[in-house]
């Protein structure tokens, strides 16, 4: 059976399909960019928090004969903050027990920008606690 007027039936279909695939390419690449940015930010938050959590209160540590490893909150916040470049520090707080930091950064999108999503805000947070005398993993 032949249907009249089928000329050009593939081109419109492929045009639609191409647009669909292009959006998928955008999602794959931009989602990848976003996840990569998220990992990067998490690594930054973690190492900054760890730096803060190594600022223990030496007086308290000595006074307790090495039993109390608590943080010097002011020094811990400074040490953490010093390592946070090019990021927005959403929250940074230190107590004698832990340092908490939440950072954010706008991440430009490559492909989805054409669809109006020019950038996305990625966030990461991290908590670090002081430990002393770690001799074995898990101890």
């Amino acid at each position, binding site marked *: 059976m032949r249907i009249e007027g089928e000329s050009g039936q593939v081109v419109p279909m*492929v045009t639609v399909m191409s647009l669909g695939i292009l959006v998928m390419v955008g999602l794959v690449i931009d989602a990848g960019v976003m996840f990569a940015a998220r990992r990067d930010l998490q690594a930054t938050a973690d190492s900054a928090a760890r730096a803060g959590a190594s600022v223990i209160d030496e007086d308290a540590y000595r006074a307790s004969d090495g039993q109390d490893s608590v943080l010097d909150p002011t020094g811990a916040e400074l*040490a953490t903050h010093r390592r946070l470049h090019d990021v927005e520090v959403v929250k940074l707080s230190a107590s004698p027990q832990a340092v908490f930091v939440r950072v954010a950064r706008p991440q430009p999108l490559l492909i989805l920008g054409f669809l109006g999503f020019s950038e996305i805000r990625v966030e990461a947070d991290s908590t670090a606690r002081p430990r002393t005398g770690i001799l074995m993993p898990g101890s």
Partner: protein
Amino acid sequence: MSERGSAAVEALLVAPVLLVLIALLVGGGQITSDQAAVRAVARESGRMAVTASTPSEAVELGKARGGEVAAGYGLDASRLGVSINTGSFERGSDVEVGVTYTVELSSLPAFGLLPGSARLTATHTEPIDRYMSR
């Protein structure tokens, strides 16, 4: 005029376009995954380096760890570069790690349709413990 076979001809003409788009999709996915791997290498390398007693040991340990992680992610060691800046290496200072990786786009699982290569980079800064024993 008969239109018999015209759809097939059209399909033949547009197939390369579709193929290139799908190649982009696959290639984009591969680059994304390699970028994540490069970041993991930088981070792990830094975390290992700060446990060392001396700067030269830090470089050695950091690079070895970077190589292990890269192998785990299936990266090609010959195209991986790990540089470790130990700085003053004093307690409380930072060690900086830079990682570069070259992706040959023609070797991606994208039918060899993408030309050239892409350079992926990542950096990581890791603090040295203020009270670590050496």
